[in-house]
């Protein structure tokens, strides 16, 4: 439903020019910049209020009072007590935006950014659209989330362009950092607990707080649709909680419209790169602490390349839901009494959420290294399989990179490839930015995997060390998956079904799409449209000739198709391993196993498989992939989460597992 316009928009968007905001910072006083006058445009119906007045509004609001009374009745606690609890929750949550703190950040971040990054590119047209939108309707900023830097960066840019500073939904974990938590609060962050599903009062305070900010037009609201930082550089499936909260005022008629603005933040190199790889491999992430932050000073000495920040097209919720949502469903009850939205609203919100993440993806700027990492990874795995010497000649890599550059541009990627420079130079300079990941020796480029095993380390440790590098490279490859995932699903579907009949390809495609629902951003219900769009792209790339009932692979198409299917291969094999493991578990331990058991079990199993040479993709060790695979298995009915037990227990459905095995197994036969 949204895709055609989205496609058209993304075409338009590419015309926006980027400006480097650090350039001016390098040429003029940071102090003056931090102290300059700041007069952003305001929402036309803004009700000016201080942070404390806002808190009072929230505490006195009808919806909150209603829930306070309700909780009091249900729990038998006096109203005053519940009210005090609500007040305490709000105190813990609420932001305290202060311009002085913002100015402090403006100064220090200028220094930090100039050290870390070569440039910060911003599309100024997007900023103009935002400034326009801010005056018309309440605005919700939805940046992609790859780094802790994201929201500091957002506020920094908005301050730079004299645009209203957002209030930002941040996770409670920041609160643990002394000083910093308070600093962030004063720069506009508000803090929400990670999980509060059952806590009615908390939810009421939280949603009323956010909605009051929104309705009063106090400031743009910023949050991360993905819910958390993606450790894989792959967009995470959108979380709907906060989105529902900011959309509700529109559906209830409390605002004329809500403008949603997706923002794509692309890092040439992510600060947390190796941290993420370790985390995915099961080393728990270090708890946020101020001292930890100082240790991170080491990172300050390295070169992190450029950042591209793309402010996307504003999305009007009103326009998007027109004719699809009956707002009159809220007519018969006072609106302050919580009421579940109807199916029509849920459907629109889900579609919207996926569309927004897809918008973020579409405007992600890809650097040449993304192509190189993809090619080097594929080369690495091929050499593992064939036993050849790993690595590629620089010239070969450059040639392949140019081929992939053209293919990805054809598929609509926003690729930042300097066409005015000789390709070889582009390749080598982008390789130089990642000395920890790739090595060049004797004109050969290869992944910088730790070399010969030392006597001291076990094969497991060696594997772990290698996997850190692999996963880091994977995080670059992942940046371009959204460009190829549609056609790649078709290519894999052709492999699985080993058929050229369209209906059989469609069946396999739909199965894969369903299975990878948690892995990639695939809009629910968009199967047929995705399929036909992917066919179109493949035809455009001369990889496929599509007829009414069947397809043909032309001679020159094999290269593209095999590239595409090998993109998904690690995922397919990973899922297969998970499912094999599930089966062996249920054979050995009976039908149920606990959630907590499953994860370490599966990791041991995968390590065994890799060391035995039965699995070549060490990225399967990624807990993210395992989590997604488990979700897929449960979605497809192969395992079932049993509610009510203390630990989430899993129940394995043998029939379903076997069926999956058969379906996926065909791939190897093909």
């Amino acid at each position, binding site marked *: 439903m949204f895709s055609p316009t989205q496609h058209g928009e993304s075409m338009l968007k590419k015309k926006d020019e980027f400006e480097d905001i650090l350039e001016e910072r390098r040429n003029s006083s940071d102090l003056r910049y931090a102290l300059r006058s700041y007069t952003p445009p305001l929402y036309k*119906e803004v009700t000016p209020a201080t942070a404390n007045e806002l808190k009072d509004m929230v505490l006195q609001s009808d919806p909150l009072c209603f829930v306070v009374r309700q909780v009091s009745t249900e729990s038998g606690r006096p109203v005053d007590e519940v009210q005090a609890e609500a007040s305490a929750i709000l105190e813990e949550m609420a932001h305290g935006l202060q311009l002085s703190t913002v100015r402090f950040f403006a100064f220090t971040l200028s220094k930090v950014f100039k050290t870390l990054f070569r440039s910060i590119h911003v599309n100024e047209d997007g900023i103009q659209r935002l400034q326009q939108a801010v005056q018309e309707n309440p605005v919700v900023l939805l940046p992609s989330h790859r780094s802790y830097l994201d929201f500091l960066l957002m506020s920094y840019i908005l301050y730079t362009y004299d645009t209203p500073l957002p209030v930002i939904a941040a996770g409670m974990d920041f609160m643990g950092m002394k000083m910093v938590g308070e600093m962030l609060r004063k720069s506009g962050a508000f803090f929400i607990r990670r999980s509060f599903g059952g806590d009615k009062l908390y939810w009421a305070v939280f949603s009323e707080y956010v909605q009051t900010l929104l309705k009063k037009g106090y400031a743009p609201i910023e949050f991360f649709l993905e819910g958390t930082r993606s450790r894989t550089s792959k967009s995470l499936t959108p979380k709907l909680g906060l989105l529902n909260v900011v959309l509700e005022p529109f559906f209830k*008629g*409390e605002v*004329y*419209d809500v403008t949603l603005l997706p923002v794509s933040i692309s890092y040439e190199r992510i600060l947390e790169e190796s941290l993420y790889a370790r985390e995915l491999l099961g080393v728990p992430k270090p708890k946020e602490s101020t001292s930890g932050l100082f240790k991170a000073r080491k990172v300050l000495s390295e070169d992190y390349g450029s950042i591209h920040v793309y402010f996307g097209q504003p999305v009007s919720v009103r326009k998007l839901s027109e004719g699809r949502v*009956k*707002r*009159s469903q*809220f*007519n018969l009850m*006072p*609106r302050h009494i919580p009421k579940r939205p109807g199916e029509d609203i849920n459907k629109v919100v889900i579609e919207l959420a996926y569309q927004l993440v897809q918008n973020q993806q579409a405007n992600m700027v890809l650097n040449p290294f993304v192509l190189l990492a993809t090619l080097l990874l594929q080369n690495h795995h091929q050499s593992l399989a064939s036993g050849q010497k790993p690595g590629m000649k620089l010239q070969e890599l450059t040639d392949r990179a140019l081929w992939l550059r053209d293919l990805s541009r054809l598929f609509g990627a926003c690729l930042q490839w300097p066409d005015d420079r000789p390709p070889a130079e582009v390749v080598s300079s982008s390789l130089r930015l990642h000395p920890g990941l790739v090595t060049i020796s004797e004109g050969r480029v290869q992944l910088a995997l730790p070399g010969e095993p030392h006597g001291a380390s076990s094969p497991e440790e060696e594997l772990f060390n290698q996997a850190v590098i692999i996963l880091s490279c994977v995080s670059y490859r992942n940046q371009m998956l959204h460009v190829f995932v549609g056609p790649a699903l078709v290519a894999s579907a052709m492999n699985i079904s080993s058929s050229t009949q369209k209906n059989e390809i469609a069946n396999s495609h739909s199965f894969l799409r369903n299975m990878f629902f948690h892995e990639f951003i695939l809009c629910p219900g968009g199967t047929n449209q995705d399929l036909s769009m992917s066919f179109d792209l493949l035809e455009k790339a001369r990889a496929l000739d599509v007829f009414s009932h069947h397809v043909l692979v032309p001679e020159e198409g094999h290269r593209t198709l095999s590239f595409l299917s090998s993109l998904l291969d690690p995922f397919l094999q990973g899922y297969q391993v998970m499912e094999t493991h599930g089966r062996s578990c249920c054979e050995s331990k009976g039908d149920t196993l606990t959630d907590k058991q499953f994860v370490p079990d599966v990791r041991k199993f995968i390590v065994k498989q890799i060391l035995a040479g039965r699995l070549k993709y060490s990225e399967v060790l990624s807990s993210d992939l395992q989590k997604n695979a488990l979700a897929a298995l449960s979605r497809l009915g192969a395992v079932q989460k049993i509610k009510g037990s203390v630990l989430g227990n899993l129940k394995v459905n043998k029939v379903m597992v076997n069926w999956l095995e058969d379906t996926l197994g065909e791939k190897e036969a093909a």
Partner: protein
Amino acid sequence: MRRLPLTPVTASHRSAPSIHKHGSSMASNISGSSSSSDRQRVAQHRLRVIAGHLQRSAESDSVIQAAECKASVSESVAADSETRTVPRRRQEIMKWNGWGYSDSRFLFNKKGQAEFTGKRYRLSGLIIPGLKDWFEGTFGANLQHKSPATPILNSNATHPPNLNKAFVEELKSTGVPFSHDTEDRVFRAHGHCLHEIFALREGKVGRVPDMVVWPNCHNDVVKIVELATKHDVCLIPYGGGTSVSSALECPPEETRSIVSLDTSQMNRILWIDEKNLTAHMEAGIIGQDLERLLNEIGYCTGHEPDSMEFSSLGGWVATRASGMKKNIYGNIEDLVVHIKMVTPQGVIEKGCVGPRMSTGPDIHHFILGSEGTLGVVTEVTMKIRPMPEYQKYGSVVFPNFEQGVACLREVARQRCAPASIRLMDNEQFKFGHALKPQVSSLFTSFVDGLKKFYITKFKGFDPNHLCVATLLFEGDREKVLQHEKQVYDIAAKFGGLAAGEDNGQRGYMLTFVIAYLRDLGMDYYVIGESFETSVPWDRVLDICRNVKARIIHECKEKGVQFPPLSTCRVTQTYDAGACIYFYFAFNYRGLSDPVHVYEQVEHAAREEILANGGSLSHHHGVGTLRKEWMRETISSVGMGMLKSVKDFVDPKNIFGNRNLL
């Protein structure tokens, strides 16, 4: 033919002077009698006539001898035609292609100043200096760009009448007057929706009635309905013709002969019952006549819809009308005690006039709001009240609309609403300001300037946010003053400042002239309309904001080249909500089909109203204009109930205007 507006009434021994006393204490909101000597003369003449009747009736002591039909009265006496506001040939005094009286209209004179012609209204004959700037500024209109109306109706514009000969023949024998003159037919083929008037101004006429009949009494109607049923003729009742719901348009698919049944000649007050404070009227009587005639003997109904100069009692019943002063007197459903309606199945009426009954669903409620689909309302018994001793206007300025609404809500909560309380938004406040007539004295303008200074500079009200509430108090002098204080005290809590009687009075006066203003706009490429809804209190602000914004956005999207006027006011307060009026107008230069654009925008605005918890209509009714939303408004079962009533009462669809369902 001598038709008396007031036939012998119950022995009322009030003397003429006592009527006079009340009349003069009232600052009339229609015509401002004190300012116009012409009006005084007419009124005095009427008084003489009525006084004469009163004396005669007292002599003969004939109580309730009213039902006798006027048709038989000799045609020889035609002396006091001016006492009857609505003649059979309405076009003689009213515009055929615009609002109201032919002699009253706005125009820009040679100096480019706006003036209002005629002598009927307080504003008549006055210059309105601010209107031009407001008009040009608001709409981007230009006095050089005119879009004049077709001056006269081309008789070729209509199809020749499709007459049902047998019906006509039998009708002749009853002696009920009828006509198939083109002008008569065209006049009754429309209400006052924008598209209807726009088409007339362009000389375009759609399907029109084939014939007009003027029954003189209930029995005439019985005969007409019997004949129509017998000969399968389509009847469309016509009262004041002020419909704004496309309720009078002839269904284009109707193949039968269409007869417009004009009730204007059924305009007598048949009796007054002072013991029970009720009056019994023929349903064709129009609001201003009813009120004036009752005033003359010291009573009133208090029912004052904005259209009361032209709309009829029967029309009020058929559309569930609402009056400005409903806070004291109630809406039409509260005022009606007894209704007589002629249907194809016969006459429907209750057997007594008890003030309340528990006798199953109230059959009056099948009639109220039936919009001419079931029959013709011929006679109505209505509550009357002694005229109020004292009337006082007032106004309050609020810093913003939110505060104003909060104040109205509080007034409603305390159930102390004055006879009328209305809150205009900022745009309407400015509009009202632009309609201030030229002030004669330097002092007045000095005082005005001082007031403005006080409100905007001293009190810090933003002229682009402030809004004004107009008030009308009625009752005993002492109680009015007490009441006034109570309301002003509440207003003060919401930042409201009393802004004088003049502002209030002018606000109400504008109610009657605003309809004329649309015709002026249409002379200069500006088209507009008003529409209304009712909504719970907690929704008022949201619906006002959203609907106004929707109008602006839709206009932009539909290619309107100039920003539209999109404004609203809260016109009635209830315990559980309020009535809201939206006004919307735009400059249509550059549009190829302005009426279509207009209709799309109004449609979108109505969708927005419904999405925001507003009703389909507070008092304009459904007609054919808003039929599409009836099912979601009253549910499918509700539709079925109404439909089965229609099927029983009028199985042949004689009353075939196709309104409502």
